[in-house]
């Protein structure tokens, strides 16, 4: 990775330098003040950089050299499913017939786009055991919010206005309670039992006619499948609530088990996790929401329909929660996910989950002698360790993670889930080879030895990265959030 400091784009700017990308004006030019009143016109130009094309290319190439992607190496970031992003999907999503299509073109000119949306809905419904999907939500958290709005609209439509609470396990992703709040719910936490699943008795006590539903990730954030799922569904449904499935961990169960068959009423999937679309440094993602039949009327509008001759948008949906985003969602992300599903087929999808679970269990088995394993049972697609043995040598999970950087790896997710002290969560995904896993395991063992014998190596890590550990307290105390000239 590039260690040399890269100036900010503004510091590279040279007054008067530019690349002529646009032609001159070929229509009769008028005085601008004759077109727009002077009071509306800007007096001085915005402070944008003045660069030549080579400057721009070098600058952003240098920045890219300070980044680490899945193509750079192993990225075992738990709960994030950093699998390989197939190149063909990138290529096909950029076809003119997908990328240069305007969202308001007449329906007869976008039949391919509509068919793709329609078929993706069908495939995702089949994969999850749901009846209908909306592809409008732009990300996982956006899908959660949408799903919970659907839940609220459903209860309200039944005249059930009391249900203002959502139950969320203490092991849940932070987005669960935050999305519930965005959808106007009060959040109630349910604790986990010693096996890592939902504490059934605690759940029973929390249920009431004020509970709208339960949000659950299964396998949960400990990488464990909640065996009581049927019982949980029964308890929630008996009390008039609905079950929401957070699809963050769906990579463990594709083709093996379906949320719809477990009793879930609403599901969101992260296409940027399970369906291989790239994360883009933090987005764009896509978080489609699927529902059971009774909830279909509440889905965001429009939905795509097919009348056996043509595909079309259906806007006439009086019970719909409305729109949650402009147009129809992050379309080109959906294109990539569609291509992924078609390239793998049913058999290939099932093998994804099998290999993902095998890889996680292999790492678990090979590392459990070196790191504390708080829940020692078969895991699904990810495994949660604790750095508490290493804590005795004065090093923390953060130090272990930083040391991994020097070994050329992206570290696992750290300090999550919150219910495990010094947690680190490893999700290898199915696209990693045994050789890669073995090398990583060896690095982790070496780090465990260093923690014991040379802890300063961890405390000083990383040493081999573009910057060393950064002063986050300074950044937060006196925030510098933009470049100030001079």
């Amino acid at each position, binding site marked *: 990775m590039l260690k040399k400091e890269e100036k900010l784009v503004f510091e590279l700017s040279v007054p008067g330098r530019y690349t002529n990308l646009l032609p001159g004006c070929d229509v009769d030019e008028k005085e601008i003040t004759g077109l727009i009143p002077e009071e509306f016109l800007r007096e001085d130009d915005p402070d944008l950089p003045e660069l030549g094309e080579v400057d721009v290319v070098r600058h952003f190439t240098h920045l890219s050299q300070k980044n680490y992607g899945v193509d750079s190496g192993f990225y075992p970031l738990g709960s994030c499913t950093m699998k390989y992003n197939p190149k063909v999907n990138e290529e096909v999503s950029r076809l003119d017939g997908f990328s240069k299509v305007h969202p308001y073109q007449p329906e007869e000119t976008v039949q391919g786009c509509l068919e793709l949306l329609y078929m993706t809905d069908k495939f995702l419904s089949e994969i999850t055991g749901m009846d209908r999907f909306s592809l409008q939500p732009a990300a996982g958290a956006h899908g959660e919010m949408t799903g919970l709005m659907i839940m609220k609209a459903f209860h309200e439509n039944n005249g059930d206005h009391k249900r203002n609470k959502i139950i969320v396990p203490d092991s849940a992703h932070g987005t669960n309670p935050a999305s519930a709040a965005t959808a106007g719910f009060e959040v109630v936490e349910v604790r986990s039992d010693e096996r890592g699943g939902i504490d059934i008795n605690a759940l029973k006590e929390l249920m009431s006619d004020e509970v709208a539903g339960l949000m659950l990730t299964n396998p949960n954030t400990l990488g464990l499948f909640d065996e009581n799922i049927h019982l949980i569904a029964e308890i929630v449904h008996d009390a008039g609530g609905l079950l929401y499935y957070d699809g963050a961990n769906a990579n463990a169960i594709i083709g093996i088990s379906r949320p719809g068959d477990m009793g879930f009423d609403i599901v969101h999937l992260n296409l940027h996790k399970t369906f291989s679309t790239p994360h883009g440094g933090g987005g764009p993602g896509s978080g489609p929401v699927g529902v059971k039949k009774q909830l279909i009327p509440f889905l965001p509008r429009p939905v795509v329909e097919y009348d056996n001759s043509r595909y079309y948008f259906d806007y006439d949906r009086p019970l719909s929660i409305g729109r949650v985003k402009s147009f129809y969602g992050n379309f080109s992300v959906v294109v990539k996910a569609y291509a992924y599903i078609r390239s793998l087929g049913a058999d290939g999808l099932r093998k994804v989950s099998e290999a993902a679970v095998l890889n996680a269990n292999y790492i678990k088995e090979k590392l459990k002698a070196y790191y504390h394993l708080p829940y020692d049972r078969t895991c699904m697609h990810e495994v949660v360790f604790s750095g508490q043995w290493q804590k005795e040598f004065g090093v923390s999970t953060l130090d272990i993670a930083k040391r991994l950087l020097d070994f050329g790896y992206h570290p696992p997710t750290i*300090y999550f889930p919150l219910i495990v002290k010094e947690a680190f969560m490893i999700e290898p995904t199915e696209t990693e080879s045994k050789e890669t896993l073995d090398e990583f395991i060896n690095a982790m063992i070496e780090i465990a030895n260093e923690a014991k014998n040379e802890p300063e190596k961890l405390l000083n890590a990383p040493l081999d990265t573009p910057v060393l550990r950064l002063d*986050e*307290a300074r950044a*937060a*105390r006196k925030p510098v959030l933009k470049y100030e000239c001079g």
Partner: protein
Amino acid sequence: MKVLDGLKYSAEHEWIKIDGNKAYIGITDYAQHSLGDIVFVEIPEVGSELNKGDVLSVVESVKAASDVYAPVSGKVAEVNEELADSPEKINEDPYESWIAVIEMSDLSEAEELMDAREYERFCQEEE
């Protein structure tokens, strides 16, 4: 961990120093230590009326946000504006860095709080 005699302590790790009907309120050494580098203190509004247990302020580190609760009821009479610019003062000297002064509406509430010895024991149990 430092605990000062003569102050009263809450189970949420606030300290109060009583001066007549005025109560100076801050967070304890134990609290600042477990939070780490404090980067932001939300300064309460002077004049706001609080019941015991209401959120008085929020103290933030880089990776955590912790509510500070009013250990006694009353009106916020004074606030420590200095903490807005120098939140790190709480790390440096937690017992000098009061966040607000509450004019107590019920003096007996303070008596229910822990004294130094009790608080020390309380923290040991928390570990």
